């Protein structure tokens, strides 16, 4: 039951012979006459049966490496130097027919997006057996039998029946399982995985990672795992390389890198992530300032030096070589010791200091149904909660649990079916029916930075528009106010004339935040505002949101799926499942027993980064049930590992107040819920 998050490798175990060896590889992209050295001198080896993680942010070139290994670079890219060898054969010297025999048979790949990677017009079983037919010349019958067997191995329910389904008939997690079955069915020696769990929910991700671990053990396959998520790497890989702007900056086994990161970039990345659990009050996150450099204009200095906190004169003059800093540990930095501020110095309670007692938003028995041909789909099913003035309320749940629908009802983008929402003791409905004053007071920050700004408008037009609409400041002062707003989100006046496509994702999100603040609102709904940003950028935006909240003392409803992030900033958190409230309480209360069984499963699914924390393993089976069929009992009973019997199926549990302000909706008596072990156990002392 325990230990899936303990560090999975032992530095003393020597690796088998290299399955994949990448030596001094340079990859260049061409765009017109511009040369773009995307990867420079990348070297690493993956031994048989080993899981090797390549971690980097977007634009770091990690997928480029994967495609180069597959010999499937984009047409304007070229491997300019070095050698990529697979089991001793140089892949770059093989003809395209020889490569065809290798790809899919000896080297497989699991892509990122399961939906677009499966052909929608073929049954999933046929898509698996197709590979077997090509590579093993099996007859249709044999191939189908083997395919069904593989689908069973990846724990798809009723493999014979699933084999006959089309991709759209199964869930995202199941589609990813099919792709994993396709990848493993030829028993490859090397499996390349390009962010295979990025689009999935945490609970699904946890099960897919279990599956990959199991398949790796059974098939003794070497895994080349590409991701941006350090937590996933820690839970899956034996060794890891950190890549930054096309250069591998640090490499070593997972335990030693997570315990004592050597390169400043690795340290920065680890500090960006909100800790899963600390005993002390929250610490301000360290963001990595600056941007990935433009690779078309490379300088001789260390690639990370413009953003490095510990930069010295030496770093600016010449890039450091790879330095062996321990057994199988390499770091591309002149230094290994850094004088960092003592961590305790900048402890600071970032949660909203003192939310007032006054209730700002009151959601009472809210229901939202979407009529379909088969009946009403219940997106929000009788949920009540309130948000006080100046409070940060977190809302967590898997995708499809109705949290975004609730948010859209509160801001008035959706009409609700039953119940009431009051704001400042006034009943509010759709946005067009609200008073201008109410509209001004409720704003929203959206999830996708790429779509949140109108591409045809400049930042100035975007920010001054709400100022003009609500006449917040007189016309002559609007530009000045826009500049102030930009400065409050750490951007400068220079951004005023830019169009959205000229700024980065993090900056777009900052502009979106500035726009929300422009009307001087009292409530801002944040719909996963950081989930599509890079880790190093996330920290900056989170810090910014804290600062602004403290300064203006407004209420946030923060929607997210990452419990660590939510815990980091919220005063209260509500856990939602299928449009119903499971648990609501302070963030620390959620992390300690008594747990709602669903909260417990969510906590167990967090990919913990800290190497000193042990986590109990609880996995949710099956998918969320259909929200159309009537469900008189507890919404969670179909997947609940602690279901007690018919009562769960027949009657919906009432909310029990276990502590003032901490409510759990479950039939299991509180004493029993409190009797479980805490989810997290602490091993060694905190190291980072």
């Amino acid at each position: 039951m325990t230990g899936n998050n303990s560090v999975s490798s032992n530095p003393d175990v020597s690796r088998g012979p290299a399955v994949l060896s990448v030596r001094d590889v340079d990859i260049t992209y061409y765009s017109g006459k511009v040369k773009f050295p995307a990867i420079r001198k990348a070297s690493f080896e993956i031994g048989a049966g080993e899981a090797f993680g390549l971690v980097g942010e977007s634009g770091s070139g990690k997928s480029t490496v994967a495609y180069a290994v597959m010999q499937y670079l984009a047409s304007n890219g070229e491997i300019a130097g070095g050698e990529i060898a697979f089991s001793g054969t140089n892949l770059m010297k093989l003809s395209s027919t020889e490569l065809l025999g290798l790809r899919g048979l000896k080297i497989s790949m699991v892509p990122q997006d399961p939906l677009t990677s499966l052909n929608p017009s073929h049954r999933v079983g046929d898509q698996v057996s197709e590979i077997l037919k090509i590579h093993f010349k099996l007859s249709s019958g044999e191939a189908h039998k083997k395919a069904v067997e593989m689908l069973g191995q990846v724990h798809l329910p009723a493999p014979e029946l699933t084999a006959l389904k089309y991709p759209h008939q199964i869930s995202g997690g199941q589609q990813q399982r099919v792709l994993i079955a396709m990848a493993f069915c030829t028993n490859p020696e090397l499996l390349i995985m390009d962010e295979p769990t990025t689009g999935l929910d945490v609970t699904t991700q946890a099960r897919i990672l279990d599956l990959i671990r199991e398949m790796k053990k059974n098939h003794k396959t070497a895994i080349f795992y590409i991701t941006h998520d350090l937590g996933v790497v820690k839970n899956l890989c034996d060794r890891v390389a950190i890549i930054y702007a096309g250069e591998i900056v640090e490499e070593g086994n997972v335990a030693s890198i997570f315990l004592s990161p050597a390169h400043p970039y690795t340290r920065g990345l680890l500090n960006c992530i909100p800790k899963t659990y600390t005993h002390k009050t929250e610490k301000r996150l360290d963001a990595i300032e600056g941007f990935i450099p433009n690779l078309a204009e490379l300088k001789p200095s260390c690639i990370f030096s413009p953003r490095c906190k510990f930069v010295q004169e030496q770093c600016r003059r010449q890039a450091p070589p790879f330095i062996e800093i321990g057994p199988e540990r390499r770091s591309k930095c002149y230094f290994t010791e850094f004088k960092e501020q003592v961590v305790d110095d900048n402890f600071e309670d970032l949660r909203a200091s003192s939310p007032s007692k006054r209730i700002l938003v009151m959601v009472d028995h809210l229901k939202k149904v979407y009529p379909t041909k088969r009946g009403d789909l219940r997106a929000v099913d009788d949920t009540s909660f309130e948000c006080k003035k100046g409070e940060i309320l977190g809302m967590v749940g898997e995708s499809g649990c109705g949290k975004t629908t609730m948010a859209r009802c509160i801001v008035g983008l959706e009409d609700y079916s039953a119940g009431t929402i009051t704001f400042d003791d006034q009943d509010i409905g759709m946005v067009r029916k609200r008073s201008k004053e109410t509209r001004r007071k409720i704003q929203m920050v959206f999830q996708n930075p790429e779509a949140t700004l109108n591409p045809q408008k400049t930042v100035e037009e975007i920010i001054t528009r709400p100022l003009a609409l609500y006449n917040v400041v007189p016309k002559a002062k609007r530009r000045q106010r826009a500049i102030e707003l930009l400065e409050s989100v750490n951007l400068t006046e220079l951004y005023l004339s830019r169009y959205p496509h000229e700024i980065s994702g993090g900056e777009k999100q900052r502009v979106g935040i500035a726009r929300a603040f422009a009307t001087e609102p009292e409530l801002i709904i944040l719909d996963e505002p950081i989930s599509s940003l890079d880790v190093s950028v996330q920290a900056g935006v989170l810090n910014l949101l804290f600062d602004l909240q403290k300064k203006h003392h407004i209420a946030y409803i923060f929607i997210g799926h990452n419990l660590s992030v939510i815990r980091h900033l919220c005063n209260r958190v509500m856990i939602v499942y299928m449009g119903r409230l499971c648990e609501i309480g302070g963030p620390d209360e959620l992390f300690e027993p008594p747990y709602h069984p669903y909260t417990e499963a969510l906590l167990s699914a967090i990919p913990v980064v800290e190497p000193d924390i042990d986590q109990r393993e609880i996995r949710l089976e099956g998918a969320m049930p259909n929200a159309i069929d009537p469900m008189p009992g507890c919404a969670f009973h179909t997947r609940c590992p602690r279901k007690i019997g018919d009562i769960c199926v027949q009657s919906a549990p009432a909310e029990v107040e276990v502590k003032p302000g901490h409510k759990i909706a479950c039939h299991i008596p509180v004493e029993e819920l409190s009797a479980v072990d805490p989810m997290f156990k602490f091993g060694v002392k905190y190291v980072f």
Partner: protein
Amino acid sequence: MANNSSNQSGFRKIITGFLKKNITTNLIIGGVLLLGFVFVGIFAPYITPHDAEEMHYENLKEMPSGPFLLGTDRFGRDILSRVILGTRTTLLVASTSTLLALLLGIMFGATSAFFGGRVDNIMMRINDIFMSFPTLIFAMLVIGVLGPSMINGVIAIGIIYAPRVTRVVRAQALNIVNLEYIDAAKVGGESPFYIIFREMLPNIWPTIIVEGSIRLGYAILLTASLGYIGLGPPPPTPDWGLMAYSERGYMFETPWPVFAPCIAIVIAVIGVNLFGEGLKDILLAKGSRRKEAKI
């Protein structure tokens, strides 16, 4: 002010498109042909070698020759001059009717997409009804009601093509209407009018421009067809369709009076379509067909 800048940014895209050297041969050939016709249309009275109405009785049904480059018809009128003057009518009718179609199409398409649901459903079914009429019969109906004249021709063609533009605009607007910046505008408290015309429209300009250039080609054809069945501008205004119609009885004896306007129609339509294709490559390019990494 915002309107001004949004037009500008649609325009900006065209300019940047040009700067990226995305200009295809289609665009150049089409552009030259189209500009040529526009030039001829504008300066028609000054460049005709003869008076289009003047009947040269000593040169009836003349073969193309020195003084009459495209020959003369059975009344001895210079065909080249008539084709040149016909350019003017055709272009005028075709372009104004296209503009009318675009105007109606943008209004209905964007509104329909924005409101969605039942409004969209009703508007689209009405649209379907309009589209299910054969174009020529529908034009005859409109002109039959309003009476033949240049303006009524424009109205007829505009109404005929508006539903088709509506479809294209609506499809494009549907891609945008669920994006977050539209939600942001709604949360911000903007009126539907503002959202449709200031937030959505600037993002569908490229489609509208391309659609307009394609529509123009069809409008030229329809203008000529209407002229041919006698519903164009009434004689003696020179019109390509009417010219082909009135001379068709002598086609085997003297083919040039029929062929000259027909060839003019062909060249004009080809020119407009090539130009439209070229614009499409610039404005709506979905990247190259080869897999290429974006830098």
